[in-house]
């Protein structure tokens, strides 16, 4: 084949085609200009939007900036408006660390949030898996029972929990702080939702291979819902790390306080010494902010996942 294929609309007559091609060229230029204009308009819109979102976003994080700035000011400079401390000092931090059991509170919070999270991840997964994949007399009733506890506000339970803790001598202990949260109905519901998506054929095949029921759960089903477990862990850890009302009620001694409870007591006892309060607030929030900045993608994805299915 020697002749090149004719374009649609070409006549094969050279004069006609050359005029046609000129027309086409002009039309293309006009179209490109219009697209360029739209593009530019869109780009301006993007820039305006970005500036607005940036201003809003800086407003969102400004309280943290002001917290850190204030924490670096000396007591006599604390009411100055400058964003740069006139004579930056770490003295406030030193004073907070000396006056309080900050390190102990931090460790308490880590221990409590970690153990609670591991427990919730394990038991909620197990219960969710069972309620998704096993049919036995009473299984629906058990599911409804667990789900119904979601409606009960924590505040209704703290008084009975407190009486229990007194009765069993759990006050002022790690177990006392942790026991109400070692499982969560929300987590059971969330994990059940995800385990429903695991194909039954897979489980039956594993049964035929002679896997025990627990091994099927642990080795086959659980790895398939890893993102959900991760989401549940993030949710639970954050919730326990920031929990306030129950640890406030159940702790007595200063050394058993969690970080939020310790910070709350220190702040209200500080007689408006805001240079110290801001140092304490920074000590409580900056570690979380650093962790968040490192894992922000996973954390935001996890929260969205947990929020949507929940």
């Amino acid at each position: 084949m020697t002749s090149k294929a004719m374009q649609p609309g070409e006549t094969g007559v050279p004069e006609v085609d050359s005029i046609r091609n000129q027309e086409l060229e002009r039309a293309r230029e006009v179209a490109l200009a219009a697209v360029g204009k739209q593009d530019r308009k869109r780009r301006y819109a993007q820039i305006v939007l970005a500036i607005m979102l940036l201003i809003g976003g800086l407003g969102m994080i400004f309280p943290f900036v002001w917290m850190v700035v204030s924490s670096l000011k000396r007591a006599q400079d604390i009411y100055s408006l400058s964003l740069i401390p006139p004579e930056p000092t770490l003295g406030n931090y030193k004073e907070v660390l000396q006056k309080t059991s900050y390190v102990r509170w931090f460790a308490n919070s880590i221990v409590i949030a970690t153990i609670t999270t591991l427990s919730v991840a394990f038991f909620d997964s197990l219960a969710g898996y069972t309620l998704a994949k096993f049919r036995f007399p009473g299984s629906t009733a058990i599911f409804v029972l667990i789900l119904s506890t979601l409606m009960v506000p924590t505040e209704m339970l703290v008084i009975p929990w407190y009486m229990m803790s007194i009765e069993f001598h759990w006050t002022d202990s790690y177990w006392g702080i942790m026991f109400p949260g070692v499982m969560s109905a929300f987590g059971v519901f969330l994990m059940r939702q995800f385990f429903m998506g695991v194909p039954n054929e897979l489980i039956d095949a594993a049964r035929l291979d002679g896997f025990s029921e627990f091994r099927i759960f642990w080795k086959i089903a659980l790895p398939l819902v890893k993102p959900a477990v991760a989401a549940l862990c993030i949710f639970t850890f954050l919730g326990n790390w920031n929990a306030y009302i129950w640890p406030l009620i159940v702790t007595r001694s200063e050394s058993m306080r969690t970080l939020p409870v310790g910070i709350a007591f220190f702040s209200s006892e500080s007689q408006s010494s805001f240079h110290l309060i801001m140092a304490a607030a920074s000590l409580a929030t900056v570690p979380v902010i650093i962790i968040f900045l490192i894992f922000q993608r996973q954390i935001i994805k996890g929260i969205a996942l947990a929020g949507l299915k929940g």
Partner: protein
Amino acid sequence: MRLTLERRRWLWGYAFILIPLLFFLAIRIGPTLYAVWVSFHKWDPIAIDRPFIGMDNYRTLIDDKVFWKSLRNTWIYVGVGVPAGLILSLLIALGLQRMIRFTGFFRALYFLPYVTSLVAVGWVWRWMYMPNGLFNDVLSWVGIGPFKWLGSPDMAIYAIIATTVWQGLGFQIIIFLAGLESIPEDYLDAASVDGATAWQKFRDIVLPLLNPTLVFLIVTGVISNLQVFTQVRSMSSQGTGGPLNSTISIVLYVYQQAFQSLPAKMGYASAMTVVLFLMILAITIVQLKVLQRDTE
């Protein structure tokens, strides 16, 4: 004796669910019923005698001005805080959705407050609200103020709501963004071809399809605002819900009656938590009704 395969599987099911079931019975269901039981008693944990007094606690509630105040305040926290948070977060989510670049960076900016402790940020806001603090200083440049903020009985509750909205915004934005992403682009393109304006597309396509997301955020928002406690304790004067009880919430009043008053009024406080529970129950039922209507 040999068990059939089905029976054996039942046993596994019971074995797996046993510990969680015992937990929920002992730590959730039991205490819920116990709280109702306690609410019918005059209950001081130190006293030997805890007499049954029937509905007396509830009758006292009706005449308790502070309880009514806390109930009213709690509904202000809900009625102002939830809509304000939803409108702001939806606007920001719509903006973020249109961003092509730096989306991760912007999301992180808006989400950051959500991960921090409400106790700590409550005190940071309290510092900014001080009579000679940041807000009044900045407002004085444009000749406004000074305001008393947390010291003013008319203003304090709204100052606390602002902090609550700020802290919860990130969560709501992320949920809205997920909801917006689930709207098929074809619908919007088709509407554009038909010449629909941006507002028409939002009102007639985006908003109706966003309905489940809205219901979820409204319900979680209402329930969490009904239980507002931490920020009031951190931000109100002396942490007691002042000035003049203008910021006291139901949960803070429960806490004061059960754990701070002498003698401790645990029966009375329990009666209040039963009222709170009934409100949450009513909202949950409404939610189920709305969602049911949606799927029909």
